[in-house]
């Protein structure tokens, strides 16, 4: 029994390794892009809306509102990144009900890759919002003594992101497989349902945490900008 889909290798040509993680990632990507492209091919502005368009609008609007509520900022810059994170993770987790499907999020390589993306996105969004100097200066606040801890925090939370998602999805799949071998009837169904719930929750947690990290790196500039705007108004 494989702990991670990385171990299911279909093709190897050093350094290229075509494993189940990449294969099911492409499958998931194809599904997401295909459905999106098919639905958005003929969008209707006026009601009545097609059911698939209604579903996608509901999902996008839900993410849009969640981002706005959490960041208290314009959600548009964050929507593509955080929304894609959520959609990819949740789709991967929900597709585990399909027999033979191996969730890419059950691979530590995938979760590390996603965590690395977040790790890189945080300074990118921060620098884009605050500028390089202000972003780097934020590591020295409230006191330069905190700089090592800030750096450690950056790495540790990235690692935590990766390990949390991997551990939950991997453990869920592993537990379901073990229970399937021990109690083949009914109990695995319950565990699958719980796995779906945990998968959605983990996708939400991962996305929200990534959003919080990114938004916290951008919020200082927003506050400064808000204060300077107020000062200009007073002048």
């Amino acid at each position, binding site marked *: 029994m494989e702990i991670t889909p990385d171990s299911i290798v279909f093709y190897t040509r050093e350094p290229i390794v075509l494993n189940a*993680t990449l294969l099911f990632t492409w499958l998931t*990507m194809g599904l997401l892009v295909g459905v999106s492209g098919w639905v958005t091919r003929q969008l209707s*502005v006026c009601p009545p809306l097609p059911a698939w368009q209604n579903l996608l*609008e509901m999902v996008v609007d839900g993410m849009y509102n969640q981002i706005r509520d959490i960041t208290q900022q314009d959600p548009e810059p964050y929507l593509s990144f955080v*929304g894609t994170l959520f959609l990819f993770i949740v789709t991967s987790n929900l597709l585990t009900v399909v027999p033979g499907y191996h969730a890419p999020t059950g691979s530590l*390589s995938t979760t*590390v890759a996603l965590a690395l993306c977040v790790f890189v996105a945080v300074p990118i969004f921060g620098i884009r919002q605050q500028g390089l100097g202000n972003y780097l200066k934020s590591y020295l606040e409230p006191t330069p003594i905190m700089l090592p801890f800030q750096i450690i925090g950056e790495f540790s939370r990235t690692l935590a992101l990766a390990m949390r998602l991997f551990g939950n999805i991997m453990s869920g799949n592993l537990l379901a497989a073990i229970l399937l071998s021990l109690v083949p009837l009914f109990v695995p169904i319950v565990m699958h349902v719980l796995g779906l719930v945990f998968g959605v929750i983990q996708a939400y947690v991962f996305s929200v945490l990534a959003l919080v990290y990114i938004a916290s790196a951008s919020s200082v500039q927003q506050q400064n900008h808000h204060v300077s705007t107020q000062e200009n108004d007073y002048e």
Partner: protein
Amino acid sequence: MLINWFTVFAQVLNFLILVALLRWFLYKPILKVMHKRQIQLEERWQEAERLQAEAQQALINYQQQQQEIQQQQVALLAEARVTADQEGQNLLAQMRQEMADQRAAWQIDLQQEQDAFLRTLRQKVIHQTYAIARQALRDIANADLEYQIIQVFCDRLHHLEDSQQQAISQALSQTNSGILVRSSFEIPADLRQQVIDELHSQFAIAHPLEFVTASNLLCGIEIKLAGQEIVWSLDTYLQTLEQQLSNALTQQETSHHEHDLPAGTGCLH
């Protein structure tokens, strides 16, 4: 080793490609459509507000027009009521006038019928009274009465007015025809002589006298002298009585008319 670094690199690349693809195929079109819909909703909302304002204005205009129509209706009703009242008054006055005219005509007809009836009645009463008196006098006539009639006649001849006496004398002097003495009874010879004497004493005539009994004279005597008549007869009294009765009834009718005419107008309300 749980981490395959090629897979990690490939997954990073896959994720970035997925971000780009979903941005192109999902977020942009959906947000664009939602933004368009939002704009349309705002436009529709504004249009709805504009239409609502127009509807409100139309409602106000309608209410104003309705109020004006009600005022016009009230004015027209008042005017129609006044006109109807005036027309009613006119018709009532016209009807009263027609009624009064009809009543007057009816009263005139009635009065004429009454007059005719009274006239006929009066004539009948007079004639009947006259006939009764005449019959009574005829029944009670006797020698003493005839004597008294002759005496009264002679006394009248004796007391003629001067102008009448002169006119008779002058007329007698111009003619030689006889003198006719008519009486309702046969005058005895002595009384005839008394009449002759009286005539001779009054007019100094030599004309022949002729005594005739006339049944149409009622207890009386009549003499014609040159176109002049000297008469005494109860018929004269009876004619006087008839004339007085007629006058009395005429006066009574006149006074009755004067009392009736005011009472006959203005009874209809």
